[in-house]
């Protein structure tokens, strides 16, 4: 869907010269995925398959992003308050209204061998959040039977794990009359701020009415905190992989909480190579394993339980 440039939330944050260049030369924002700004370099617009430097063919005509622009942008992103966003800057990205994320790079300052903060920020990567419509209605009968089952989503990067996870979270917190699914208290532990894209602790995606989000908290610790404090029915986490994640996951399932999580991997054997995941599968922690794939540009989910395939649907 095409959207006028001045209506998107990230446009206002850009320095005026960049705004001018973009509005003159960027006709179509539909496929736009990233806008990359680097000090001393022209603006790069990245869409699904191509990348282009704005400014036409003549190198002379290219506008170069400069230090003043960088300072302006950082000022706008941090609302003139770098101290308030120190932790976000240390982690290397800020989330802005609309769920867009801005990745940062510059000079890391190390104190006691740990990155304390980034200084002289010179590269910005505005990653534009797209809303992907998924038709997940056919999926729910496999995942819900009186209660939500322990579900893991497996897929390679870009296959839509996070989007699907977000969709499941919304479904769990909203419920559905027609599918006879009652709404549940749903908690998201959002370590990378990707699932809910919270701003000031409030999710910027519509995730239903019964959602609580713990933003930017390490997963394992966050899961334990939430189980103790928020009494969730459903717990949603992204990208598990470390030993302590598995431990927390075990703890959660033992406490009677339904867990939705995702993990990187292109196949079953791929995932099972990791000792943490292998032990989780061996212990039969998960009732449902969803494999995401994109044959011929169509999103497809294969649903498994411990032993066999239960079905394949496209979403």
């Amino acid at each position: 869907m095409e959207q006028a440039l001045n209506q998107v939330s990230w446009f206002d944050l850009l320095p005026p010269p960049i705004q001018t260049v973009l509005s003159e030369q960027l006709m179509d924002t539909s496929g736009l995925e990233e806008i990359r700004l680097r000090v001393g370099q022209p603006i790069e617009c990245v869409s699904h398959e191509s990348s282009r430097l704005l400014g036409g063919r003549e190198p002379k005509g290219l506008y170069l992003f400069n230090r003043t622009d960088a300072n302006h942008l950082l000022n706008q992103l941090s609302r003139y308050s770098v101290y308030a966003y120190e932790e976000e800057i240390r982690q290397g990205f800020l989330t802005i209204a609309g769920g867009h994320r801005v990745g940062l790079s510059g000079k890391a300052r190390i104190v006691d061998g740990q990155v304390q903060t980034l200084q002289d920020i010179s590269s910005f990567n505005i990653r534009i959040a797209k809303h992907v419509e998924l038709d997940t209605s056919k999926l729910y009968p496999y995942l819900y039977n009186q209660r939500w089952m322990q579900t893991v989503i497996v897929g390679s990067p870009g296959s839509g794990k996070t989007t699907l996870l977000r969709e499941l979270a919304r479904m769990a917190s909203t419920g559905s009359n027609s599918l006879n699914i009652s709404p549940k208290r749903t908690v998201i532990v959002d370590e990378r701020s990707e699932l809910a894209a919270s701003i000031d602790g409030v999710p910027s995606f519509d995730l239903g009415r019964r959602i609580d989000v713990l933003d930017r908290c390490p997963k394992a610790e966050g899961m334990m905190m939430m189980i103790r404090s928020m009494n969730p029915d459903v717990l949603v986490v992204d990208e598990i992989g470390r030993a302590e994640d598995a431990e927390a996951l075990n703890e959660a399932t033992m406490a009677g909480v339904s867990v939705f999580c995702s993990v990187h991997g292109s196949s079953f054997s791929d995932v099972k190579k990791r000792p943490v995941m292998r032990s989780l599968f061996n212990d039969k922690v998960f009732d449902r394993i969803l494999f995401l794939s994109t044959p011929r540009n169509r999103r497809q989910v294969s649903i498994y339980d411990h032993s066999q395939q239960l079905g394949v649907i496209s979403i």
Partner: protein
Amino acid sequence: MNWFGASIVLVATTWAGWEWSNRLKQRPQQIRQLKTFLQALEAEVTFGLTPIDEACDKLAAQCDPPLSTFISDFSNRLKQGGYQAERAWEEALNELWTRTSLKKSEKEILTQFGQTLGVYGRTEQKKQIMLALTHLEREEAEARDELKRFEKLFRSLGLLTGLLLVLLLI
């Protein structure tokens, strides 16, 4: 007629003397208010991690004019967007300077502080606030000293200058 003119001169110079001594009196008070503002800002920055515009809105409500006008003026300029924080601060400061008894040295301290606003992490920002506070403390001591020494002097100087003028002119 002579007497009428003389009384006008007397009233004018006496009033000027009072005004001067009033300014002397207001200066340490206003420095004190500034210090209170900076201390509150420090708490917002280090403990609240409140963005600067929000923090200023909060603090403007706790201060008296003309300081409160300055603070909300600054935050309004920031909210307009497109500004450098430093420039917004400076412009608001210039506005304030038409309405205050503060002196140039205080303005310099504040201008320098404005340049650090919002561009540092938490610890550095705190240090900058502390630095501005130390400078202001020195100015406050000086202003109090001046007040003690010159308050009565200025007041009587006004009246006496008036008398002198009257005597010379008659």
